[in-house]
């Protein structure tokens, strides 16, 4: 009966062109082939066990990796009156202080030398925006008329344009460090490598010096940032490829930190004598103390660290994986109990 109706309908359809009959396709009838997964315990429990096991494994590996990383942290703010740098804390003149420390076992190389600041808000909006990317790209047009984003560090008191303008450049970190190794009672300077501390793209592409030699000529009619002791084209007079806007210390500073307590890479220790690492022994860190942090209760520190494939010492990832992995396993046990108790009810 139904069949004949359908045939009748088809005949009818052929006769009438204006048939309103909707198309019988999977799409229009909402019957597209579809995968309909159901998150039921029988699938989720094994999945959780697998994931949990995998996570615990990964977590342990990460944790061990992180544990193997050595870290030496030296606070040199000098808040404590006993501290060798105490005298420099409020001193505005040039001031040098030194700290000694010892490394008990070989500090495996390559060793990275960081400086750290706390309570320092590089991530403020106005501060971060206070720069002129066109200047930093070496565009001479912006040397004489810097972007107003840089206010109030656009022009100096004599209305001369500042290059590089802005709060970010102006506040560049200017403590310098020397590290010496006491070998047989003699201080031996540990050579520090200032290359490769900034992002490759920053150094090669994003920042550029104007293509004028000597570099100083490009800066005619401009002033150095007010806080700087020397202009940008004298940041590293020994190496043209580390001078001006592509000075790597400058680049490191210009990549502002996400959080108020941050570290920045200062040097790498790659010299042949120390390529394998810093041998056990006594070391002296000499600090040319310039940068004021006292006013905002900041702390300054130096961090020596080596890295693994996953970066510096970071227990968080390992712990997180272990915790989440164990939770997965625990929860799968809970679900198993639930499943065992309620499965039969469901079947009824």
């Amino acid at each position: 009966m139904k069949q004949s109706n359908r045939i009748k309908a088809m005949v009818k359809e052929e006769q009438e062109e204006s048939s309103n009959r909707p198309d019988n396709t999977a799409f229009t009838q909402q019957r597209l082939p579809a995968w309909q997964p159901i998150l039921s315990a029988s699938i989720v429990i094994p999945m959780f066990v697998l994931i949990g096991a995998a996570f615990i494994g990964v977590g342990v590996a990460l944790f061990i990796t992180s544990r193997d990383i050595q870290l030496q942290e030296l606070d040199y703010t000098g808040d404590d009156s006993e501290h060798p740098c105490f005298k420099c804390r409020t001193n505005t003149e040039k001031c040098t202080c030194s700290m000694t420390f010892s490394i008990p076992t070989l500090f495996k190389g390559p060793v990275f030398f960081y400086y750290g600041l706390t309570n320092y808000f590089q991530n403020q909006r106005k501060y971060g925006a206070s720069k002129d990317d066109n200047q930093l790209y070496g565009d001479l047009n912006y040397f004489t008329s810097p972007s107003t984003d840089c206010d109030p560090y656009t022009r100096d008191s004599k209305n001369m344009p500042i290059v590089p303008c802005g709060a970010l450049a102006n506040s560049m970190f200017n403590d310098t460090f020397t590290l010496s190794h006491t070998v047989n009672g003699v201080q031996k300077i540990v050579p520090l490598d200032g290359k490769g501390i900034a992002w490759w793209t920053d150094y090669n592409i994003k920042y550029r010096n104007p293509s004028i030699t000597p570099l100083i000529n490009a800066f005619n009619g401009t002033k150095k940032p007010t806080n700087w002791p020397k202009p940008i084209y004298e940041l590293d007079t020994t190496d043209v490829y580390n001078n001006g806007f592509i000075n790597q210390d400058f680049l490191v500073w210009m990549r502002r930190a996400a959080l108020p307590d941050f570290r920045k890479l200062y040097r790498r220790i790659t010299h042949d004598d120390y390529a394998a690492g810093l041998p056990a022994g006594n070391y002296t860190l000499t600090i040319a103390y310039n940068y004021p942090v006292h006013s905002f209760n900041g702390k300054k520190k130096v961090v020596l660290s080596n890295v693994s494939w996953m970066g510096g010492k970071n227990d968080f990832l390992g712990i997180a994986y272990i915790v989440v992995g164990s939770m997965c396993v625990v929860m799968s046990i809970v679900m198993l109990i639930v499943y065992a108790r309620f499965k039969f009810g469901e079947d009824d």
Partner: protein
Amino acid sequence: MSTSKVLKRLWFVFSSLLSPFPQGFDPPHQSDTRTVYVANRFPEHGHYIPQRFADNRIISSKYTIWNFVPKNLFEQFRRIANFYFLIIFLVQLMIDTPTSPVTSGLPLLFVITVTAIKQGYEDWLRHKADNEVNGAPVFVVRSGSLVQTRSKNIRVGDIVRVAKDETFPADLVLLSSDRADGTCHITTASLDGETNLKTHFSVPETSVCQSVSQLEALQAVVECQQPEADLYRFVGRVTVTQHGEEIVRPLGPENLLLRGARLKNTKEIFGVAVYTGMESKMALNYKCKSQKRSAVEKSMNTFLIIYLVILLSEAVLSTILKYAWQSEDEWNEPFYNQKTEQERNSSPILQFISDFLAFLVLYNFIIPISLYVTVEMQKFLGSFFIGWDLDLYHEESNQKAQVNTSDLNEELGQVEYLFTDKTGTLTENEMQFRECSINGIKYREMNGKLVPEGMTGDSPGGSSPQLVIHTNSCCTKLMSEELLFLKAVSLCHTVQISYNQSESWLGGDPFSHTNSFSFSHMEYYAASPDEKALVEATRRIGVAFTGCSGDTMEINTFGKTEKYKLLHVLEFDPNRRRMSVILETPSGGKMLFTKGAESAVLPFTTTGEIEKTRLHVDEFALKGLRTLVVACRHFSPKEYIDVDKRLMSARTALQRREEKLQQAFAHIENHLHLLGATGVEDKLQDKVPETIEVLRRAGIKIWVLTGDKHETAVSVSLSCGHFHRTMNILELLQQRSDNECAEQLRRLARRIKEDHVIQHGLVVDGASLSLALREHEKLFMEVCKNCSAVLCCRMAPLQKAKVVRLLKTSPEKPITLAVGDGANDVSMIQEAHVGIGIMGKEGRQAVRNSDYAIARFKFLAKLLLVHGHFYYIRIATLVQYFFYKNVCFITPQFLYQFFCLFSQQTLYDSVYLTLYNICFTSLPILVYSLFEQLVHPDILQAKPSLYRDISKNSLLSFRTFLYWTMLGFTHAFVFFFGSYLLMGEDTSLMSNGQMFGNWTFGTLVFTVMVITVTLKLALETQFWTWMNHFVTWGSIAFYFIFSLFYGGIIWPFLHTQDMYFVFVQLLSCGSAWFAIVIIVITCLFPEVMKKVLYRHLCPTSTQKSQVTTSSQILCPEPRASWAKLGRRFEIR
């Protein structure tokens, strides 16, 4: 000035403001009538004041090329959300804010453009249609000849010629046709869907002007009311000046040819245009689009307000904290970040306000900008599925379901009360004559014979009066009453005849053929199926109505032709509920035949077997038959003169014509002699009982509202399963006074408590209902709520709407749905939350005014249980998900303020802020909301109780909303603090010891967020078509590809190059990958847990039925799940 006039004037002012072409009613002409000079021959002298009328252009389009941009923009910005974003955009333009105006301007532009494109496209279609209509060629009589012109050039007063099968280009008053009597036939199918032929008339003075030259000489003035939308009302008069003498004739709807109707069976007509263009009745009916809002939309707006409050409080909190922090000098202006002079000197209050606004801008994305446009697209695209559904396609009538508004799709899944009409909705509206009662004796029709009760057709004889008629036999046995009854039935109607070989008699005298015609070639067309059934029945029995020409009706009684002169027709109207004809019999007597509902006729009868007939009528009704009572009245010549005069004066009245007509009718239809009653059966539609049962199991309470008699209604109710035999039927009938009614209601309430029956049914009639509603609404509602089925009979159209409104406004605010097929259901359809029209036999009025239209009642089951369910879960999840993803989006930004001195530093780059909503997360949810199916449609129909799972807007309840919002906040905390802990004391994450900056941190959070938010939707998705796969994985892939591209280039036009290589650097470090995985899993793992535990501990019936679906369809072996594990892993 009376109030109505004031109102009218206001209306004119209003309408001229609204309409694109101000119609310019100059104040002196704001009269209630308009004067139309035929052929625009204005009087040469005298007090003629020109009136201005609209031209004949039809403008259904909203915009023109010139005003599209401003008008569309204006309309879009009236939306609160768009306006909000415009404000944000302006704030960004004016003050220094953390993000550039582009970040909110671009999404806004996108949203506005998408909407504008959609609306522009729709308007372009309307323009095209308009141009086609306005440019159609028409023939107009101008300066003595027939001129072809375009439709839009017709002016009021022009004489228009329309040929056969053409549509009328304006509302015309018929002047003449090619027929001698000046009549023509039309169909109004495109206006109201009535396919029957209707006869329209011209006044005798003009009907003689059949040629252009004669029309040229015609001196006539038409006066009529100002345009109004009612298709069936027209009051006017025509004054024809002949030989210096003015003859006034009344004009009514039967003289008016409506624009859009089609000329049939008539070679050509001439008519004078009285209403043109936008003033024609068809155009006036364009409006009246229902402005219903769905429950989902209402909760959506509530949620928006809640989010606005969250936004404001976050902004206020941030501003306050900022100032609390800044009160310490070292944080206000550290040496490395000093303020400009201007900043130092600006007033603190201004500073505070601008900071507040800046925070507002920073957090503004918590209001989902693309929510509205996505919802609109979802509804617009999603509604196609209804029309496409083969199960909603009716083979016999070649009609598919029709969506008139897509705004209410999800409301179909929320229905709690269903109000249905009976005739044509539950029944076929295909009438079959079954029984009649003549002069107190019951007859049944058997094989074309009327058989008295208790007799079989083959045993004639006996002493009792009987009527056994063989078509060819002699009619000696026929009693005069019986013959009179049959004649009355075959004469008292407005049926039209179409001959199959109709061409042959066109224009000629139809009667010349009748003798040679066999009746089978005739087909009756009637507006009312009852009339058609009755006339067909009398033809079978032997009294055949064979034709109507001008004012002569012809019947053939057993081979003998009789001609009756039709003097007056007292048309049917729903209030009077009867119709009459006044005829001159062949013998010259004047007679009135009346036919109508028993309650509308019996009170006016004075003679005849009244009591017996009443009993019979009740018996018919008990069998579920539709009853009509037939009566007659003889007029003496003197009486007739009086009647004629009354009718004429009432019909020519320009003021209060209806009222006067009613009075005249009431006077005439009196002192009737009862002839008998008819019983016509209306078959139930296919699968009505099943559908009602299914809907009831879905938790929908069904009320049947009908104009029928109580007995008929109850019997149909029983046969269609609305009432069960086991039900305790409570009655509230024929209450005459308030007290009585209240007393009865209390008694019923008591019975409900005392009677230990599970189900109660209630029967109410119209009169009792209005009493109950007047004083005892609460009591009545209480009784109703305890009844699982309610039947209201003898309902007037407005009463139906009233009942719907009563339920709608009751404290629980249930969602109501009204189904109906006729004009009398329109008010109810418009009143209910969702109105559904049945494409039946009673015209298209209901369909036009409905929100959805279906061909049969049984389709309601799929429409509600499947489509309603689908749409509801889709849109509910869509709304919740939108809020969720925006909380996820913005909360990390809020948290970041605690780590950056509330300096309004954004966490994400501007481009990410801009594209998050319009690119990265928009498509998966759109595709989800178009294709999601929680449960297979067959199971939804097989298990109607699943409908209860989503009732009461449960997926958008405050609890669920809170859950999603809290989930959003939790996830945001996990994203942010996960990344924060990863950074720890800012150790290097790269194997070369270099450091990340703030943008890398933000990008990490953003990446985790995009993945989590997309996967969260993947977890919600039950129905993975290839499109879901494509957009889900595609969105994530697109995010990665886009970010690589965006970060890989120094963009010359961008102000800063902050994002340069950030993303690559992030991905190049292993820890970031491990972090992304762990954070995403941490967010989703409790979700999976929750789902599994809920499924096993307290599964909803929806979830239970999912199991059956999948075990039947997908995995015959549940233990094979291990093999599928790999694939399942993907979705996490």
